């Protein structure tokens, strides 16, 4: 076996190994194969889910907006965890916006409302004077049990007051209890300006433990309330300015059909290349297989969020990978037409075509990067896959193809007739 046959076998083994890794994964490294369950991190448009963008409601932007937004993001994360959306992703957009992505969500509007609620807790007397606020509370728990003297049992929120607040509350109850003649001897508990309960006060209360009760409170509601009260109120109200919500059924078939489209497209391209470029076409088919395998491996390894436009980005970059080969092969055939030997033509073809291939790929990269930086939502996914695709295609279409081609032309297939 001569050196070039060995090179060729090495190159093809490399490609086969890549395909195996892409399909079967590397179990000992924890890398799953592309077809394994959960290998692809699906975008919301494929898995179903919601994307919500909130904007801070502010008359003017305060100086400490950055730290306040960071606090808001932490609170949103806590709230998402409480609601059971542990897979959710929160990201800041610009200065006053936050984007929340929640996969596998069944009731998006409920999430929109709960996440965006300020959770401003206030105890008020009948005149509306605020007695206690959320910052007076040092702890809040969800409890099930009897919550009044008549023995009614149910879910309620148990609150622990700070020492100072206990005093304030004692004073207030002392004042309010004397209003029984006018029927105003109650303290109203408001959450986000919505009345929760207004228990009547008959005596001065010196306890540090209070409870928020409401008939019909469910376990989930109480847990949610306790959690948002302990986390504290948001520094400002959040308004949902964008919602994209997609049911899981709608996304399901999208990945399959796109995959099928890519496979058929790829097959036609390979047949086309072999018909028009013969042995060159076979080499470029091997490079294309390597390209597809590498892109799959990158998507799985780096958990690239694959959305529908993202798939389009991959498919489009397949086209570009082929383009680089076409430009190179055309050039080689031209050099052959000038009467050069096969190996001289291949050498000249690659060096002449390289500038054109590089320049055209760099301009595409410029578009991908700009899109990556300025795009929002699903478009970012497209930019990322296009970027990956172009970089990988430069490697496979130029370097891998050259390596294989240089080996092939020095084996038994050294006659020009196999190439033109």
């Amino acid at each position, binding site marked *: 076996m001569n050196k070039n046959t060995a090179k060729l076998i090495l190159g093809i083994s490399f490609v086969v190994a890549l395909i195996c890794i892409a399909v079967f994964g590397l179990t000992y490294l924890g890398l799953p194969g592309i077809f394994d369950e959960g290998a692809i991190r699906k975008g919301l448009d494929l898995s179903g889910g919601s994307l919500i*963008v909130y904007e801070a409601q502010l008359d003017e932007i305060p100086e400490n907006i950055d730290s306040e937004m960071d606090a808001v993001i932490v609170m949103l994360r806590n709230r998402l965890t409480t609601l059971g959306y542990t897979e959710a992703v929160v990201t800041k957009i610009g200065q006053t916006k936050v984007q929340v992505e929640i996969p596998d969500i069944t009731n998006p509007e409920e999430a929109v409302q709960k996440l965006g609620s300020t959770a401003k807790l206030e105890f008020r007397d009948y005149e509306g004077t605020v007695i206690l606020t959320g910052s007076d509370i040092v702890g809040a728990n969800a409890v099930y049990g009897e919550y009044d003297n008549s023995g009614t049992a149910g879910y309620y929120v148990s609150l622990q007051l700070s020492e100072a607040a206990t005093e304030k509350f004692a004073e207030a109850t002392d004042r309010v209890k004397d209003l029984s003649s006018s029927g105003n001897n109650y303290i109203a508990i408001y959450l986000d300006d919505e009345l929760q309960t207004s228990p009547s006060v008959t005596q001065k209360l010196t306890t540090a433990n209070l409870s928020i009760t409401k008939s019909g409170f469910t376990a989930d509601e109480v847990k949610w309330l306790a959690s948002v009260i302990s986390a504290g109120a948001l520094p400002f109200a959040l308004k949902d300015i964008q919602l994209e919500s997609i049911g899981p059924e709608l996304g399901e078939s999208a990945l399959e059909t796109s995959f099928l489209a890519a496979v058929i497209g790829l097959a036609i391209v390979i047949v086309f290349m072999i018909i028009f470029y013969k042995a060159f076409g076979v080499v470029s088919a091997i490079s294309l297989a390597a390209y597809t395998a590498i892109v799959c491996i990158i998507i799985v390894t780096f958990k690239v969020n694959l959305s529908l436009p993202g798939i389009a980005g991959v498919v489009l970059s397949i086209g570009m990978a082929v383009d680089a080969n076409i430009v190179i092969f055309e050039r080689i055939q031209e050099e052959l037409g000038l009467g050069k030997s096969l190996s001289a033509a291949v050498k000249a073809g690659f060096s002449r075509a390289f500038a054109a291939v590089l320049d055209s790929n760099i301009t595409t990269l410029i578009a991908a990067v700009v899109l990556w930086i300025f795009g929002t939502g699903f478009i970012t996914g497209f930019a990322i896959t296009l970027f990956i695709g172009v970089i990988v295609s430069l490697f496979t279409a130029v370097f891998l193809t050259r390596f294989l081609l240089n080996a092939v032309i020095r084996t038994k297939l050294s006659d020009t007739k196999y190439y033109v």
Partner: protein
Amino acid sequence: MTILKNMHFDFIKRRKIFFIISAVVFLIGIISLIVFGLNLDADFVGGTSFTMNLSRPVDQTVINDVRNLVKDTIGIDASSVQSAGSNGTTVMIKTAEVDTENRDKLVKAIVEKYELGSSYTDYQVSNVGASMTKDITRSLFLATIIAVVLMLAYIWIRFDLRSGTAAVICLIHDLFVMLTVYSLFHISVDSNLIAAFLTILGYSINGTIIVFDRIRENKAKTPDKSFDEIANVSINQTFRRSIYTTFTTLITIVMIYILGVASIKNFAFPLIVGILAGFYSSTCLASAIWAFLNNIGGKKKEKIAEKK
């Protein structure tokens, strides 16, 4: 395919025809934009859309019922209610911006009316508020302008300013053709358009660069030839590549268009148009414009020389 290989088609001689074709397309585009405008999606004008699978044929009766239900439930008129999806069991409702409580109410009302069950999730809601549309619109313009400027700068550095100008004119041509198609066919203009635009920005310039690369080489090889001749030779030498590449790129995108789901179809169609426009502009326009710019520039230089 030897015809393509040893082609000697005089593109430059026919440049008037190509310019006229593009001018006509441009005119159609302007008229269409004035008469039909653009079917701007909520991404640009704000609003809410609901896409719900009702598991029953959405006929005129259902559409009317849904329209009334929208009015009764949230108190505003739907701007459009239509049947959607490949099997026509999906209804798409578009309204002005609706807040979360009312969105919830409407979904629940429809679920109840059509007995879709309490665990119904086969729907899609999209709501874009006014302040978000400003952001999206701004990022579209910003991204397009920055990308174009960066490409111009890159081509200027790697080639020259006239090549860069010609390439940018071709880019604008391609984007305008896409916009015309959006307008003529009433395709909803959403943020996918930004992605499609930038894909074509990146892709169509490939073709132009391949031709300009050849011009750069031929100019160095045969400096005595006229700009027109150099442009012509270069187009012919790269023509087969242009055809092949356009075909291979189109194949994959067309497959996506044929087999893909509705949302990806909306993305694939403008790409197909853009790729075709890109083929036309990079073969029939780019070099002609390049030669034209150089001829003008050359004459100016001669005049200056004469004066001296």
